[in-house]
């Protein structure tokens, strides 16, 4: 699992599948997923789990669903206080 070697500043709370987690404001949401141990995020067409791979917006393997239904790359979504995101892997409809 990933761990931080740096103190967090400007701490906010984000919700992953409705569970609260502390994050640094402006930090990519994919970082928080990995720091909290969510290495699998969505399901590939072959039914296998996938997780963040490139962390810079090119691989599209960190897809998450935001509260308003938008599907976004977790590495291109930045932490703000109170945002809620859902992992497609854990959704019955597997909308992604």
């Amino acid at each position, binding site marked *: 699992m990933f761990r931080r070697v740096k103190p967090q500043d400007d701490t906010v709370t984000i919700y992953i599948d409705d569970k609260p987690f502390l994050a640094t404001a402006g930090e990519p949401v994919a970082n928080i997923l990995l720091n909290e141990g969510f290495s699998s995020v969505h399901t590939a*067409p072959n039914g296998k789990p996938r*997780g963040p791979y490139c962390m810079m*917006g*090119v691989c599209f*393997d960190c897809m998450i669903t935001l509260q308003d239904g938008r599907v976004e790359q977790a590495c291109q979504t930045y932490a703000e206080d109170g945002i809620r995101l859902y992992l497609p892997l854990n959704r019955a409809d597997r909308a992604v």
Partner: protein
Amino acid sequence: MSVRSDYDLVIIGAGPAGLAAAIEASRHDLSTLVLDDQPAPGGQVYRNITRNRGQRHASAFLGNDYWSGSRLVDGFAHVSANVLTESRVWQITSDRQVLFSRHGKAQNVRAGAVLVANGAMERPMPIAGWTLPGVMSVGAAQTMLKTSGSGADGAVFVGSGPLFYLTVWQYLQAGFGVKAVVDTAPARMRPEHYVLAIPALLQPILLLKGLRWRAAIRRKTDYHAGATSVVIAGEDSATGVTFQDTSGRKQNIPAKHVFIHQGVVPNVNLTMATDLRHQWHPRQLCWIPQTDMFGESSVDGIFIAGDGMGIAGATAAALSGRLAARRIIARVKRRPFFMTPFWRALKWRQAAIRPFLDSLFKPPDDWRVPKEDHAIVCRCEALTKADVNAAIALGVSGPNQLKSYCRAGMGRCQGRMCALTIQKMIHNHNGGSEEEIGYLRIRPPIRPLTVGELAALAHEDAGR
């Protein structure tokens, strides 16, 4: 800040090339807009530098090359340009409209000149098991260091190249336990490497730095040189790495985190979608946009700077950004343009080390296409080497025809993670030249776009 509807110059990307160009353009009073997909300037190389500087001692492990980005970011803080962060460009039209999305809304601006400075991405490394959760690129591991100061203990690093050694070194500096380093570069330099090392001596500091990183890695980690036949094991997540060492013995290292890397290539999706002319770079094994020495592309008024025009590193990127900006300033102000010989010499010196690095870390053919039939080639569509080869065997002339046979390259990443592999697989089957086989045809928008996002554009147009 109010965004205008047109600018003298729109710069795409706030890495070293984009920042240097914006500083130069600002000095000459060009109305400039900088679009970048991150929340702060720096690009991938100086990523998150503005925030990290606030607690510099806590991020000291990133090293001096990273902190050298401070100068550009400081200069950029004073430019007159408009800056839109978290903006993702998805189309440039031939009449230089730039279309992008920001916070779920599409927008467009008109530009007298466009400078594409969107940099590089890591070359796909399609080895068996590379899609397993727990496997990430080395660049991704480095991004975690820069954006969160976080890393994973007990990781195995597989690959080679400057970014590879730098990141392992940063991991060691930061105090993370590195389980093993599986180096895929040849264990011994070949005669041609020694020949190319001669011009590289013009860059002694870079050479010494690389040697120092490698020496530290050899000393401090379980280091395996000249590894071949690397496979990542696991069912639903990575459990270990197997490979063959130089003595031909099979080795197996258990690990939950595996970081892989085999060099970087220009991120050409935007320049390809803009219909700029590209050419195959046989030494760097990638496509580069055709430009003149100032970065002007085959389309009038569209320029390219930085690693997006061929891999040369951050210092060269900043120089190419300044050069392109100078050319654009002359164009906008209708002034004659003279290239500063000093910059030209600097750029030439920067390039001197590339042939050596390109050849030493050139991915061998059997790394560009996986050995195992079950290895995934197209991540988005989860197509294996066998799937793709079955379609190729039906007879295809190139990657575009292959799309309609098996969907390879039609997923969300729009070929970024598979196009180079597919091109090589067709080349292996059909023969001929790789340049002739060509890349996937990339069309705008270069990122998925919702109807809702587009609707914002219609509102905006109606309001004008």
